[in-house]
C-alpha cells in the first residue's frame, strides 16, 4: 500500500466571476460546496488532506479593486483582499505607520509563500495561529464585506467565533481590510515562538502595541493580542485595562504577563504542550511590553 502524504488536489471547478455581485450570488447559491479563493495557501493544503471537499473555488483576487493597497494620512490604510503579504511588507506607508503589521507578515512562512498569501486570507482562515491577526486587531482593523445584500463594514473585533469560524455568511466575500490612522507615537512588536526561528507556524504569538493616550491615568495605552493559545486570536482586555490604570513599571509588566496567561486557554498539540504555551505567554508578553515601551516615541 502506498501512503501519499500530500496527494494531488481532488476535482473541483475553478470559477472566475466578472463582478463581486456575481461572485456573492454564486457563493450563496452553492453554499456548503463553494469557497472564495485568494492565495490558496490554506485551501489547497486542506483539500489535499481531505479536510475540505468543495465543488467550486471562486477566485475573488482581482475583483473591483481587491488588488489595491492605499494609504491616506486622514483616512488610514486600505489593503485589498488580493494584495499579497510581500507587497504589504514592502509598502512604505505600512513600514512607516503600521510597522507591526509588516513585522507580522515577515514572520509568515517563506518569501515564495508570501507571494500568494494575503492578510485577508489569513483573517478569513481564522486560524488561532494566524500571524497577522494580532496586529490587525490592535490597529483596529475593519473589514469590507460584500454579500448578497451588498457591501457592509465588519469590525475585526468580534469577527472570530472559534477555530476556522467567523461571522461571515454564505455569499460573503471580504474585499479589503481598513485601518484607521495609528495614534501618534504608536509603537509595538510581534514576538513569535516557533519550532525554528523562521517559517514555522507559531507555538505562541504575542503582538503588543502602545501609544501615548491622555485619557488614561498613566498617559499611555498598552495592548496585547495572543495567537495560538486560545480557540481564536484574542486581545487581552484585562491587560489593557490594568496597564492604563497602573503606573508603568517592570512589576506592572510582570503583572500584565500574568493577566495574559490567565486570558489564554492553550491546548496540547504537535507543536507544544498547553503548559509550555502558558509559560511562554508570560515570558513573551513581558518581553513584548518592554520592547514596545522602549519604542514608544519620546520614551527611548
Amino acid at each position: 500500500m502506498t501512503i501519499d502524504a500530500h496527494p494531488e488536489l481532488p476535482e473541483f471547478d475553478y470559477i472566475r466571476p466578472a463582478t463581486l455581485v456575481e461572485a456573492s450570488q454564486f457563493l450563496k447559491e452553492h453554499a456548503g460546496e463553494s469557497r472564495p479563493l485568494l492565495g490558496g495557501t490554506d485551501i489547497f493544503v486542506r483539500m489535499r488532506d481531505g479536510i475540505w471537499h468543495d465543488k467550486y473555488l471562486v477566485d475573488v483576487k482581482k475583483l473591483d479593486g481587491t488588488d489595491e493597497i492605499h494609504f491616506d494620512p486622514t483616512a488610514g490604510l486600505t489593503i485589498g483582499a488580493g494584495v499579497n503579504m510581500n507587497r504589504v511588507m514592502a509598502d512604505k506607508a505600512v513600514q512607516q505607520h503600521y510597522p507591526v503589521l509588516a513585522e507580522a507578515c515577515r514572520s509568515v512562512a517563506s518569501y515564495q509563500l508570501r507571494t500568494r498569501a494575503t492578510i485577508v486570507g489569513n483573517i478569513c482562515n481564522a486560524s488561532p495561529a494566524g500571524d497577522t491577526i494580532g496586529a490587525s486587531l490592535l490597529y483596529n482593523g475593519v473589514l469590507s464585506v460584500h454579500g448578497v445584500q451588498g457591501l457592509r463594514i465588519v469590525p475585526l473585533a468580534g469577527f472570530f467565533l472559534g477555530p476556522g469560524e467567523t461571522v461571515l455568511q454564505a455569499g460573503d466575500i471580504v474585499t479589503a481590510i481598513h485601518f484607521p490612522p495609528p495614534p501618534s507615537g504608536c509603537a509595538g512588536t510581534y514576538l513569535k515562538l516557533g519550532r525554528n526561528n523562521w517559517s514555522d507556524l507559531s507555538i505562541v504569538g504575542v503582538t503588543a502595541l502602545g501609544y501615548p493616550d491622555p485619557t488614561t491615568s498613566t498617559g499611555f495605552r498598552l495592548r496585547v493580542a495572543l495567537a495560538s493559545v486560545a480557540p481564536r486570536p484574542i486581545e487581552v482586555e484585562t491587560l489593557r485595562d490594568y496597564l492604563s490604570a497602573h503606573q508603568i513599571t517592570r512589576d506592572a509588566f510582570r503583572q500584565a504577563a500574568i493577566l495574559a496567561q490567565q486570558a489564554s486557554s492553550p491546548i496540547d498539540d504537535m507543536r507544544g504542550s498547553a503548559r509550555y504555551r502558558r509559560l511562554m505567554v508570560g515570558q513573551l508578553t513581558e518581553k513584548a511590553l518592554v520592547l514596545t515601551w522602549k519604542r514608544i516615541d519620546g520614551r527611548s
Partner: protein
Amino acid sequence: MAQHRISFSLNGETELVEVASQITLLQMLRDKLARTGTKNGCMAGECGACTVLLNGEPVNSCMILAVECDGTEIVTVEGLAQDGVLDPIQQAIIDHGGVQCGFCTPGILISARGLLDRNPDPSEDEIREALVGNLCRCTGYLRIIDAVKDAATRQQALKAG
C-alpha cells in the same frame, strides 16, 4: 469538470494549454509540458523544490492552479541560462559546490534569481531570509549562501561591463 484554455509565456515562449481546474502549475509544467527541472517535493508549499518565477516573483508552483496562470510570465530553471551561457547564480553554485543530490537546486536557483532581481546586493541575512522556503538536506546551506553572494558580485561586474 470544466477544462480551461490558457496561454502564458514560459521561459520566453508562448504556450497554449488546456487544463482541468485542479491541475497545479507544477503538474502542468512537469506532466503536460515536460519541464521536469522543477521538482515535486512536499506539495504543501513548504520545501521550495517547485519554486518558479511568476511575473518575476518566486512562488511555490504546487500551490497555484495552472488556470490562475493565464496571461502570466513564468520562468523555470530551464529558462535561466541564455544562449547557452549559464546564469551567474548557476555558475556560482557550481563553482562553490552548492549542489549535492541536486533535488533542491532548481528551486534554490529560482529563489536566488528572484532575490538578485529585487535586491542586486543582498546582505547575508537577506540571502538567508530569501532562502527560508527552500529546504536542502545535503549541503548545510553555507556553500549555497556563498554562491548567492558571489553571484551578486559577478552580476554587478557583468553589468558594469
